[in-house]
């Protein structure tokens, strides 16, 4: 981190053929970064998002996940959320959107 510039609060790691691993906060800044990464990967078929390193999400972040879910459903598949922690699970529950995903919690 020696060059000057905006440091993104969210980074996405693309494991080829594997999960999309998210690090950071899925908020109004991170949501669009995640959405762009998801759109680049979805032509590959199934989508697995690893949220093990995400301890914050708000409704704008949730919208990027719901968008991926809607597009997955249109392709006849489901978005898998892996290593879902308490904070993400809570937001899914209070918005009644858990059923949009196949969820694997951190304890699974």
């Amino acid at each position: 981190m020696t060059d000057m510039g905006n440091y993104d609060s969210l980074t996405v790691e693309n494991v080829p053929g594997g999960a999309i691993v998210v690090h950071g906060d899925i908020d109004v800044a991170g949501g669009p970064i995640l959405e762009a990464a998801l759109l680049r990967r979805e032509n590959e078929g199934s989508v697995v998002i690893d949220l093990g390193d995400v301890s914050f999400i708000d409704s704008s972040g949730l919208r990027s996940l719901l968008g991926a879910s809607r597009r997955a459903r249109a392709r006849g598949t489901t978005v898998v959320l892996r290593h879902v922690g308490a904070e993400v699970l809570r937001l899914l529950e209070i918005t009644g959107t858990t059923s949009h995903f196949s969820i694997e919690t951190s304890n699974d």
Partner: protein
Amino acid sequence: MTDAAVIGPVVLRLPPDPALSRVLRLAASGVAAMAGFTVDEIDDIKIAVSEVLLALIEHGGEGPIEVEFAIEDHAFIVRGSTPIESFDVEHPDLLLCRTVLTSVCTSHGIELIDQQAQIWAAVTHASIP
């Protein structure tokens, strides 16, 4: 311990930059921790503050955003505002935001007052009597 009602308010004026969401959460956590809110309550406050900011960024203009944190009557209050010409407080994009605020806050409001989008939310500290 002094009375929590004496804390604040802290007012932040910032550009409508999404990257500042985390900065607001950090500042809000600091104020709430100082006022004795629990870890779970601080989680709610972080969500509330983020919802207020994202609604102002997504529905406001290019103008500055003002956010106030205050402790009043055993509650953490976040009040945000930004200049705006017209503002559809029933916009469908605000539905998810309202759903979240309804769950994590004791009360909240989204209004257009004096050419300003004004959003506020309150998280009450649950003290054991």
